[in-house]
């Protein structure tokens, strides 16, 4: 069985200009206390290809997401930058959000204004705001070049090879087989059992091992 090779088309230079939406999140005061979010949003508005730019209370909240989704539909946005917390936290959230209104999830980019800006430069609000502008600008220039990506599926052979027939291999093989999966169990010695087969009584129960 050959898995199909996945061939993707290369990026053809875009004819049409892209339409980017930028959302600068306050995270309550987590970001807004240090970074001037309105100023960052206003700065982003002036960047090339940015169609909409807003600051927003809590981007990840239900109303926050709704607002972004409404904008995507209303302004026909095809790229989104969420400037909020770490993508390691909310990237899945916002990917799902854009996907739910028909945008490819890989056309969303985040700028990390919380973990890597407001929280670590609390005494320097101006420098933090300057850094936030840079981070948003970087994200905008990246998102402009992002391309839609598709997850592919490949067939999965529903059989498992278990190497070693000691107690661990035996247990794994039986659990799988009892769940209806085929198992190939390979043991190098003439019998399964492993170390345990040599023990009589075993701790902690002190009963026979086999």
């Amino acid at each position, binding site marked *: 069985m050959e*898995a199909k090779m*996945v061939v*993707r088309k*290369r*990026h053809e230079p875009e004819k049409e200009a892209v339409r980017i939406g930028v959302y600068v999140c306050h995270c309550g005061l987590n970001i807004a206390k240090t970074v001037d979010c309105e100023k960052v949003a206003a700065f982003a508005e002036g960047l090339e290809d940015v169609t909409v730019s807003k600051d927003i209370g809590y981007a990840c909240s239900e109303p926050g997401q709704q607002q972004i989704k409404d904008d995507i539909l209303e302004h026909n946005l095809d790229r989104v930058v969420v400037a909020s917390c770490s*993508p390691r936290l909310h990237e899945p959230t916002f990917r799902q959000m854009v996907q739910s209104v028909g945008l490819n999830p890989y056309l969303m980019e985040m700028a*990390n204004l919380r973990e*890597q800006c407001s*929280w*670590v*430069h609390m005494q320097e609000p101006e*420098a933090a705001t*300057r850094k936030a502008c*840079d981070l948003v600008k970087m*994200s*905008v*220039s990246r998102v402009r*070049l*992002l391309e839609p*990506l*598709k*997850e*592919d*599926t*490949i*067939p*999965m*052979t*529903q*059989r498992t*090879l*278990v*190497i*070693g*027939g000691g*107690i*661990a*291999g035996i*247990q*794994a*093989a*039986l659990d799988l087989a009892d*769940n209806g999966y*085929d*198992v*190939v*169990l*390979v043991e*190098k010695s*003439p*019998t399964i*059992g492993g*170390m345990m*087969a*040599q023990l009589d009584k075993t*701790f*902690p129960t*002190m009963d026979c*091992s*086999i």
Partner: protein
Amino acid sequence: MTDVGRHPRIKLYTMSEVVDVKGYVGNFDVRILKKARYVDEKECTACGECANACPVIRPDEFNLGLSSRRAIYSPFPQAVPSAYVINVNECLGHNPVVCAKCKDACDKECIDFHMSDEEILENVGTIVVATGLEVYDPTEMDEYAYSRFENVLTSVEFERLINAGGPTKGELVRPTDRKTPESVGFVQCVGSRSVRKGGSYCSNTCCMNTIKSTLMLKEHYPDMEIKVFYIDIRAFGKGFEELYTRSRRLGVKYIRGLPGTVQEKSEKGLRVAIENTSTSKLEMHDLDMLVLAVGMKPASSTQKLQEMLGLQLTPDGFFLEAHPKLQPVDAATRGVFYAGCAEGPKDIKESVTQASAAAARVIRIMHKGEITTEPITSMVIEEKCKSCGICAGVCPYNAITVDVKRKIPASVNTAACAGCGTCAAECKFDAIVMNHFTDEQIMNQSHALLETEPQEKILVFACNWCSYAGADYAGVSRLQYPPNARLIRTMCSGRVDEKFIWDGFRMGAPVILVSGCHIGDCHYIDANHWTEKRVKKVHKKMIKLGIRPERLQLEWISAAEGVRFAEVMTRMESLRKDVTPDEIDETVRVLTAD
């Protein structure tokens, strides 16, 4: 065990080893070598007539040579499969004219001297590695005199001696005179917790196994004198402390300190010298028998499998899991899982728990009959590829095939590609595009950053799994550091192309930091080795061009090292301040002319 032999869904190959694995998750082609048994596994009823007829007598390895068996034998009564097996090296009968006594004795005609080794091909979607342990051989520890004195045994030999199914039917006897010993000593941590011999790790089960043995002895022989020599007793599991207490209550003496020497006295008695570390006194103990609680080692085939499947090992030589806390049974290679002592020393309960966990993880990716591949993979632009083969050599997952001799361009197996981007960074002809982290996408970010006031800024490349996470952790911990750094996230530091660095300096960056996971912790097996090599190479070129190499820094920062991240940022800031506008101008001039 017998359930395995009977289960309609389990195909059991004994006397077999995996010799080759090709493919990737969902579709592994496995080559298995099955050695000839010379007895028909399905037909043999284990009646034993053949063994009675066999004239060859050999020590029985299952009983560690403490009893004997024939050249045709059953490993032990409960063996699965139960069929007899011929050890060809011992058998006289390969030429039936010479012997073939067993063949004549078998009414069912199960014995076939013409059987030969077989090669079997299987296709599977997932693999569980459960190759277990090997016990430590204490011969090298001469102070315990294992190879010199017969009454010094390993704990495994001792297990066979007190086993009701063993060579003595469970009677404990001394090997030298076959009499029941009056006193027995146990030595703990043999081959464990030592930097000199064996492993430096704790083997986890030997303390409890010794406690178990003392209880069994006290049950049979209440008057026997039993002493345990130990460093400290590790009875951490459920119900363990209770057994330890019971053993002490029954009069077993626990003496803190390991023997320095063992000597043989008259009548094969043993004299053990120890420094009791509780009292700091040298003590002599006379014993009839000494049992060495030997530790565990990784199975001998570990390294072969590691290479075959592209797995990783810990410094101890056991298999390394994808994440020690959150993915304890997954290998970093997708579709491969661990169970039992293959992953590290553990007892039966833990082995079984881990095996069930591995089965659940297997089902999790197998149940749909298909799996999704990550779209963040690399791809080759065939027209640009010169078939040099570099990319295939650097890929930690063997995901790239290229025929250098016949000049067939590289192709990426997207199911196997994990998306580190090392190949894209290493290809000299820009023939590889890393999806979602293309050269243009990354350089567009650094351009946006360095367009204005570059001298004020620190360009940082951080890998997703460690250093970017470490930066996040610094934030979560509210550590304060200078606000000049801006991070560009890549999945792996291996993605950071030389040209990103040159481009950054050309754009006027005063300093640049490349950061990734510590060597050995790379999320992409060992892709960060290439980062290290690359940075060294760039450093050399910088020196040639008259650019101070300190302006390019390489740091390994783990996801937990928020403090370290903040420190590195502070250091980068002081490096930045040292770079003068003239120096930057000169660098830009040199690189633009280049």
